[in-house]
């Protein structure tokens, strides 16, 4: 390995800063085990940051995947107890629309009882009274304890708690290699993407919680883990048209769930097999399909404004050579003990599952590791509440408004759409954000209808004032996140953020959104002339280059 400069020793190294990895590192730390987590992007960079937002009741899986259903039902009850600040108790309906098999209702009801998913049939009138925009032609409605959950905010809450218990969490740390000595994995080579520095992290156990990337990680140890990335697309509509999660009551299919989260409603998802979890796009016909499925649940759905679309990749695990389609692969998770499976010790993978089951997955993998390390402290994550989270991060618009009014900080608003103040942005920048996209994740900057037209320039300029010497994680420079526009990070940040927004929006850009994009072009191209900056400030970007900068954390939505 080239210039490995630093060595770190720990008991357990966790790979992947999604819900599973974070839950795992917290569980380890709570049991007093020394542990380090590495994540190649920011926390929730992977599927956890691109999911549908549903705290599953289990209802979706009762017929097809009963084990999964029961796991969800049990974890649902636990998560409501240990992390209520990140969960909204929306409740959920399973509705039979004119497009669904009316006989499925009875099967569904029975399967709920069999899998211990709480359920109650309610009258159509009652459902329509509670959700007036619902299609009045529905014939039956079953209520289940679905909820919606904030995976960004909860990830930070779990991480904070883990750190308080002594865990060390390193984001922008990319695992480039695993070191195998005989029948044991003994260390990981990690590149700090911000500095280009390589570190060797030695651990008694290395846990592969890299979700859809688990196969790629296993490969570094010459092990075969067959993870099929199944891409799913979701669209957020700018209106909280329902307050209850709406599921179509049928076998799980595409575009059959609508989840209210904060001020929006999210329709999803599709399920398309992709070869590489880092390379996928959102196709126009997926979007058209989702819009039309939305119309079946909520007549008039297509007239609402689509705010943004994104896609995530499911970490579906499949044993070698089984020939089922992605939707038919079990949603249950699978723990792969490589000692038993492949005769390689020091390395355990856990794949599959759902956000809803992250805690259970963590418990199971940590139980094994703890036993092997001779630690007998039992798991407490099902009882111990995750502290914090109430103070700053709730990003319901009304909350921000209250803050703004209390602080008298109207004059300090950088993002008028989402009411994000200068103070919040400065805090996020000082708090270690690597680019404006990270600031967005923390503050919701640029998430409103103007698509960042105003706040991007403001926040980037502010960045330059807060951290005049900082180098943004933007340009690719011999594989380093480096010197693009050193001394004037603002420009690179603007370009990066605008591109990220563009990538996230083109698939739903029509009507008002399209108009807004044109107006943003008027600002950035016509008025500010960002395209006119010379190339040493604005590096040339051939079309085939990965857009997020470092190839390790680039997700290329290949549109052309």
């Amino acid at each position, binding site marked *: 390995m080239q210039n490995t400069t630093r060595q770190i020793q720990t008991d357990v190294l966790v790979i992947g800063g999604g819900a599973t990895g974070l839950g795992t590192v917290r569980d380890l730390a709570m049991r007093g085990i020394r542990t380090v987590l590495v994540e190649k992007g920011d926390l929730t960079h992977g599927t956890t940051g691109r999911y549908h937002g549903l705290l599953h009741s289990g209802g979706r899986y009762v017929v097809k995947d009963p084990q999964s259903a029961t796991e969800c039902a049990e974890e649902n009850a636990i998560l409501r107890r240990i992390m209520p600040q990140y969960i909204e108790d929306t409740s959920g309906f399973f509705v039979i629309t004119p497009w669904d098999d009316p006989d499925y209702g009875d099967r569904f009801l029975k399967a709920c009882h069999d899998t211990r998913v709480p359920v109650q049939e309610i009258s159509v009138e009652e459902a329509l009274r509670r959700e007036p925009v619902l299609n009045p032609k529905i014939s039956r409605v079953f209520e289940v304890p679905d909820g919606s959950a904030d995976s960004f905010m909860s990830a930070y809450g779990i991480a904070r708690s883990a750190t308080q218990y002594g865990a060390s969490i390193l984001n922008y740390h990319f695992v480039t290699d695993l070191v195998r000595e005989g029948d044991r994995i003994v260390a990981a080579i990690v590149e700090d993407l911000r500095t280009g520095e390589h570190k060797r992290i030695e651990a008694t156990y290395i846990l592969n919680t890299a979700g859809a990337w688990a196969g790629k990680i296993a490969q570094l140890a010459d092990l075969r883990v067959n993870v099929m990335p199944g891409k799913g697309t979701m669209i957020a509509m700018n209106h909280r048209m329902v307050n209850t999660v709406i599921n179509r009551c049928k076998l799980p299919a595409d575009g059959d769930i609508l989840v209210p989260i904060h001020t929006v409603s999210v329709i999803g998802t599709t399920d398309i097999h992709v070869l590489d979890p880092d390379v996928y796009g959102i196709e*126009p016909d997926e*979007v*058209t399909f989702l*819009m039309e499925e939305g119309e079946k649940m909520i007549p008039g759905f*297509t007239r609402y404004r*689509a705010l943004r679309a994104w896609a995530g990749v499911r970490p579906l695990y499949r044993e070698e050579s089984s020939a089922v389609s992605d939707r038919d692969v079990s949603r249950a998770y699978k723990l792969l003990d490589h000692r038993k499976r492949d005769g390689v010790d020091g390395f355990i993978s856990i794949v599959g599952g759902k956000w809803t089951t992250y805690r259970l997955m963590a418990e199971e993998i940590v139980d094994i590791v703890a036993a092997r390390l001779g630690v007998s402290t039992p798991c407490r994550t099902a009882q111990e509440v995750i502290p914090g989270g109430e103070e700053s991060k709730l990003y319901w618009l009304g909350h921000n408004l209250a803050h703004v009014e209390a602080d*008298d900080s*109207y*004059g*300090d*608003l*950088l993002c008028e759409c989402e009411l994000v103040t200068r103070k919040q942005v400065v805090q996020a920048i000082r708090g270690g954000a690597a680019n404006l996209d990270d600031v967005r994740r923390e503050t919701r900057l640029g998430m409103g209808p103007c698509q960042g037209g*105003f706040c991007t*320039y*403001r926040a*980037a*300029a502010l960045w*330059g*004032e807060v951290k*005049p010497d900082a180098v943004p994680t933007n340009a690719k420079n011999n594989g380093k996140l480096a010197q693009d*526009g050193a*001394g*004037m990070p*603002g*420009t690179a940040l*603007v370009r990066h953020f*605008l*591109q990220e*927004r*563009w*990538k996230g929006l*083109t698939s739903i*850009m*029509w*009507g008002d959104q*399209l*108009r807004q994009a*044109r*107006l943003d*072009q*008027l*600002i*950035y*191209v*016509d*008025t*500010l*002339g*960002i*395209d*006119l*900056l*010379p190339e*040493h*400030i604005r590096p040339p*970007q051939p*079309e085939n280059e990965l*857009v997020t900068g470092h190839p390790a954390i680039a997700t290329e939505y290949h*549109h*052309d």
Partner: protein
Amino acid sequence: MTERAIVVGAGLAGLMGALALTEAGCRPLVLAKGLGITHWVGGTLDVLGTTGNQSLRVALDDLIANNPDHPYAKLGISEIEAGIARFRAVMQQAHYPYAGSLERNMILPTALGALRPTAYAPITMVAGDMRQGGELLIAGFHELRDFYPPLAAANLREQGVAVRNVYLELPPSAKRLDYSTRTFAFFFDDPDFRQAIGRQLREVRGKATRIGLPAVLGLRDPVEAVADLQRLTGAQIFEIPTLPPSIPGMRLMNIFRRTIEAAGGRVQIGSTVHRAGGNADRLTHLYSEAAAHDQEHRVAVALLATGGIAGGGIGTDYTGRVWDSALDLPLHAPAGREGWFASRFLHREGHPIFAAGVATDDQLRPLDSAGNLVYENVAVAGMALAGSDPVQERSVTGLTVTTGWHAGNLLARAMQAHLETSN
């Protein structure tokens, strides 16, 4: 109800068209859903972006020779010049003159520190022309969240410009709960405020011979404001356009409205034209809606200047349909959403969907996809036109002003001919 000249859209194209019609005695009625893109543009008159030392006139000649479908090609150089001349005369009369030429673009700094070409600029901006030397100072206010001197200066320095930056203090009398570009424009309308700022600028000026400020130096008399600040500082002062709402854009809008209304035209903002009626080759009726009231208008001639996608004149939906929301004219647009965009926001050639618009004949009259005339008494101007992407070629204001003027004149003639034959 008599037949009228109707202009749909109150952006620069619609206003120039209305001006032409007004001056020809046609007393147009301008119907617009909202304010045009004047509030989104920096207020310079950009004819065409050129690079390096290229002559603007040569670049225009090339464009016209090589792109017969380009709106400029339908006008020709002399009509382009006529539109610009009329625009400048109106501004001159309003004590807000524009300087520049068609020979070479000026190079003005942007709020991001880029060097931007433009043919003509209000004289409040021309001292920023980077073709001259001397040390610069860029000054702003912490309270104005739409302008950041350090960022602009850093990028300019990177391009070899000698420049410093500074934040100024607001005088105590200028404390507000919230600040926008408009708040600052009101401040600068006040001579006492200018005094306070001018004194500070003199102190921090150092060796700078030119001082750039955000383009918020007043709505009432910005030329006087600049003169004041120059007296107080002994340096040349220039404005740098920044985020919307654009104060220079508002100045344009105000001047046009006053000029048109003083000459007998009417501008009605808040009226959405949503339907048209006609016979074989003439548009006869337009229907507008204002405050839930439907209005019917009989049409002698009509100018479609609805601003394309930016102006809301072109509607689009998730199925990939693209339509003219006012007159329902046939549009020239890429088929299917998969063909709308390039993968990068800042793609060098722009995005195909943004070139969507109405194809026209040489007299800017709408054509269908087979090339047949749709209405003989309708003309199209500005960003509603197919054949170019003005943002990409840096011709937004130039193209809207000149096509608006040309279309207005053609319609005035058509209207006179029509009235003669029908009398």
